[in-house]
């Protein structure tokens, strides 16, 4: 959930920036707010790299390095 969700939100924020052009590039605009906060998702609360590790070990039962 966290892995896919946070990456989806980042892609969505980028597309919104592209669609809104200079309006989204302004400080204080909604697209700018979302885009500037989007990178926090994949890092915070156990980064997506950690989520991938958990999936590899728990869901796929892959061996340790």
């Amino acid at each position, binding site marked *: 959930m966290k892995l896919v969700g946070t990456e989806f939100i*980042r892609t969505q924020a*980028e597309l919104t*920036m*592209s*669609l*809104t*052009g*200079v*309006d*989204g*590039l*302004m*400080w*204080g605009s909604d697209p*700018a707010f979302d*885009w*500037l906060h989007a*990178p*926090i998702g*994949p*890092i*915070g609360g156990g*980064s*997506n*790299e950690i989520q*991938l590790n958990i999936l590899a070990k728990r869901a796929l039962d892959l061996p340790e390095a």
Partner: protein
Amino acid sequence: MTLVLTEEEILLVDAVRALLARAAPVPKFRALRDSGDPRRYDPDLWRELAVSGFSAPQIPESAGGLGMGYTAAGLIAEEMGRVLAASPFHSTALAAELMLDGAKADTLAPLIAGDIIVAVALDEGARHAPTSIATRAERDGGGFRISGTKRRVVDGGIADTLIVSATTAEDASLFQVPSDAPGVEIRPLDLLDGRNAADVTFDNVVLGSEAVIGAPGEAAGRIARMLDVGNVLLACELLGITQEAFDRTIAFLKEREQFSRRIGSFQALQHRAARLFCALELARGVALKALRALDEADPATTQLASLAKAVLTRTARETLNEAIQMHGGIGVTDELDIGLFFKRARAIGDWLGDDYYHRERLAKIVWGM
């Protein structure tokens, strides 16, 4: 021309890099941003670049320039990207391009010398659409009367002169307008990259016939050429930004420890870094190819310009996202410079058309879609 730099070009890069390292390191831009200076550029730096011949090196000798070619200009733009140098370099290149071939020689000379700033007022909507021009120029006695609103005029807040595209009875035309002319209203924009830009409204601005650049109705070719040059130079700045962010990320991977190992020792991160390296090397080749095309008047220049802007906008976005992710929590803080590169890349990737715009344009040019 080969896709490696000549000895002369390498010397140029060294000279520009040395000047910028001294006069415009990244903390200088950060200080400018934090100062709230409404000009949002560094006049001392711009003067020094002009004196050194780095402000518009591409202008041919026949037009009073140095004749160093577009490749020289692109290499300078790349170095400026690496340090986020705040200067009206791109707006100067756009304006100069419109005035080559003898039109407005009296404006071109001080522009090349760095004595005046000229901004180009082209787009009217939030997204790039250079051929939809609602701004009208009506005949008025011997001259013209212009009305319309332009969006995102880069360096519009510091320009002495504006060059505005408007539709006349003939077709698309270009006019030179003093920024303090009656009826010109300039509204500064607070953009994410912290650089100068404004929306500009022209309300019944009266101009003499000498304000026309070239001939009325004949601006389309001039604008198209300007956009080719502008997009290639922006691609070069994106290359510099991306390379710098990548280099800083690699340095971070080598130094940062987690789980009592340096994070650069994790194979998952090594592979991601190696992929970015490949993308960046390819993008560098595309940018240089487009610069050589401008210098050699290659018939494929327009498509190479779109290709360069599309590739660099996307490579910059993907690399900057990875740079932030690999830096982790510290990557999203204002304290770290990565965020400044991230915002600048987004802003200039969007200016004169982003990767979506240029991919669509390429499809039209190459396959007639």
